[in-house]
């Protein structure tokens, strides 16, 4: 009787918890996100550096026109396989405001590794004016800030379609079923061959979206691979330690029971 009672409660809890899991892949009420295969998912998963580099190319050529990446520095690019020299060249490709100098004036200079990514607009107001009143959010932690993470980014970037009958799309808005309100202020940005990849990968819209999602995943948490690698060591240690403690406990208690 008690046994069955307990197993029912545990089963209920287990079902409930797995509901919680599936809930995580929904963008918002009722809309299921297509799930992609990600090299970085799971404890053994690691960021695919070549893919993240392609994603950086997408960000740099397209997204960076509207979206800032305020929390990331150019040096972070070393974590996806760019060499020190490559990063220096990338950083030097932007102009950064510095100062004031001895004359009390601000001046522009080429970027260095420790600079944060430069932002496209001076402030939020300027960003809104350029985008029909919509504010392009900072993308630094975007992957962590939405249910579904990388899957959501990919779905959103490829989710543009003709609005179904009955849905009115205001001027300057676009229909996108994965966006919470259904109409988004960002036009479709990624099409087949929007990018010419340096490594020769075929640039379909889906490929570009996935690549930029991987790059943003890395930027959202540059230490994620390190975290998982440390986790495996810690858990292996704890398993061995638990075994030892259990053996000691058994031996000690042998004459007590």
């Amino acid at each position, binding site marked *: *009787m*008690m046994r069955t*009672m*307990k197993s029912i*409660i545990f089963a*209920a*809890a287990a079902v*409930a918890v797995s509901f919680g899991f599936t809930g995580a892949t929904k963008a*918002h009420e009722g809309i299921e996100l297509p799930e992609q295969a990600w090299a970085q998912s*799971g*404890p053994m998963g690691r960021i695919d550096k070549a893919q993240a580099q392609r994603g950086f190319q997408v960000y740099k050529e397209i997204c960076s026109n509207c979206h800032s990446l*305020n*929390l990331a520095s150019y040096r*972070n690019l070393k974590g996806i396989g760019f060499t020190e020299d490559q990063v220096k060249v990338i950083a030097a490709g932007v102009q950064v405001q510095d100062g004031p100098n001895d004359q009390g004036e601000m001046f522009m200079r080429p970027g260095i590794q420790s600079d944060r990514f430069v932002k496209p607009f001076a402030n939020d107001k300027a960003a809104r004016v350029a985008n029909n009143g919509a504010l392009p*959010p900072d993308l*630094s*932690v975007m992957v*962590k*800030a*939405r*249910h579904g993470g990388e899957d959501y980014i990919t779905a959103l970037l490829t989710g543009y379609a003709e609005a179904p009958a009955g849905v009115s799309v205001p001027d300057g808005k676009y229909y996108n079923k994965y966006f*919470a309100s259904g109409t988004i202020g960002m036009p479709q940005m990624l099409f087949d061959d929007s990018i010419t990849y340096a490594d020769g990968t075929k640039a379909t819209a889906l490929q570009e979206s996935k690549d930029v999602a991987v790059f943003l995943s890395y930027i959202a*948490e*540059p*230490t994620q691979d390190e*975290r*998982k690698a*440390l*986790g*495996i060591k*810690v*858990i292996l240690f*704890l*398993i061995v*330690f*638990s075994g030892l*403690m*259990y053996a*000691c*406990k058994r031996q*000690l*208690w042998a004459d*007590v*029971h």
Partner: protein
Amino acid sequence: MALYPSKFKNPLINWIDARLPIFTLMHHEYIEFQMPRNVNYLWAFGAIGMLLLMTMIATGIMLAMQYTPNTLLAFDSVEHIMRDVNYGWLLRYMHANAGAFFFLAIYVHIFRGLYYGSYQKPRELIWILGVLIYLLMMATGFLGYVLPWGQMSFWAATVITNLFSAFPVVGDPIVTWLWGGFSVDNPTLNRFFALHYLMPFVLLGVVLLHLSALHITGSNNPLGIEIKGPQDSVPFHPYVTIKDLFAFSVYLILFSVFLFFMPNYMGHPDNYIPANALVTPSHIVPEWYFLPWYAILRAIPDKLGGTVMMFAAVLVLVVLPWLDTSKVKSLVFKPVSRLFFWVFAADCILLGFCGANPPDGIWVVAARLGTIYYFAYFLVALPLLGKFERPRPRPASIAEAILKGGGSVHAHAATAQPMEKA
């Protein structure tokens, strides 16, 4: 000028101990202290709670060295810790996840107490101090959640502080006073940081009282029968220390799985969006360990009523030792009460789900039924069950139960038919 007659051989220790007998105290409390020999692994959760409290304090102090309690800087300073501080990501994720695992351990600890009647005479004060610890934990957890200054931080702070506005006349002035202004803003964040730093040390103080009281009565055990002689107990060290070490290690494995592989699983994505007073999240939810209380709050259609019921739901635990009229502690001997207990446990989980879901349709009905059962369990079931349920026969002592039960500590086998095995 008499000194305390210390028994320690080491001259330095002896010299100190004779003047300040802390070594004798520790020896008495953690080496010779007698534990019932039949305690099971549920008795490790108090110590696990202690381990996590220490973890919270250690990681918290290190985080505070880098964190900035200013509305313009707080969010970025947390990200600075995650990105630029050596192993800052580890500190921050440890603090966030250990908080949840602290609550988990204490929930097991509390339900252990409910099941084995550990709150009954003579342990009423241990229990009441425990409830105080739990209240302090809730306050600390809530204050800490506000610090990263994400959307959930800001809106949780707004919703929870606003509860006080439900009280007539004094309500609004109290809220303004709590905020230090006319909305949740920089002064609020500043004081929340100061209090979040302070509370754990108050908590630590109450834990010490909790333990002082425990060391007068000694620990309860699965049979709920007091120790009657040396054959019933084992010294704390090495028997319980080794058992606790094993329990720590297993608990830490579970903790590590979350910490290293899904550190944000128990968090909410909206808290990675910087706080914005102009945008209300579509669905404001507290951390999972507050969900049952949140469900009770929203089950009552009236704001004042909900607030009062929510506080009452926690405070009813204070008088529990007097609500339970049974003379027998452990539910092992009370099958009917046991059934009510497991329904109560399920009810708390159900309330958790009600708290996680939007308050409409079936969830409102479930939350109301859940709230009724919650209070009925304490206010109706326990007083009546104690009077009317006839407990099964109990063994004369812990040692007898163990010897006659064929070596197993498992109380069911040992005591269900004490006559047959005799």
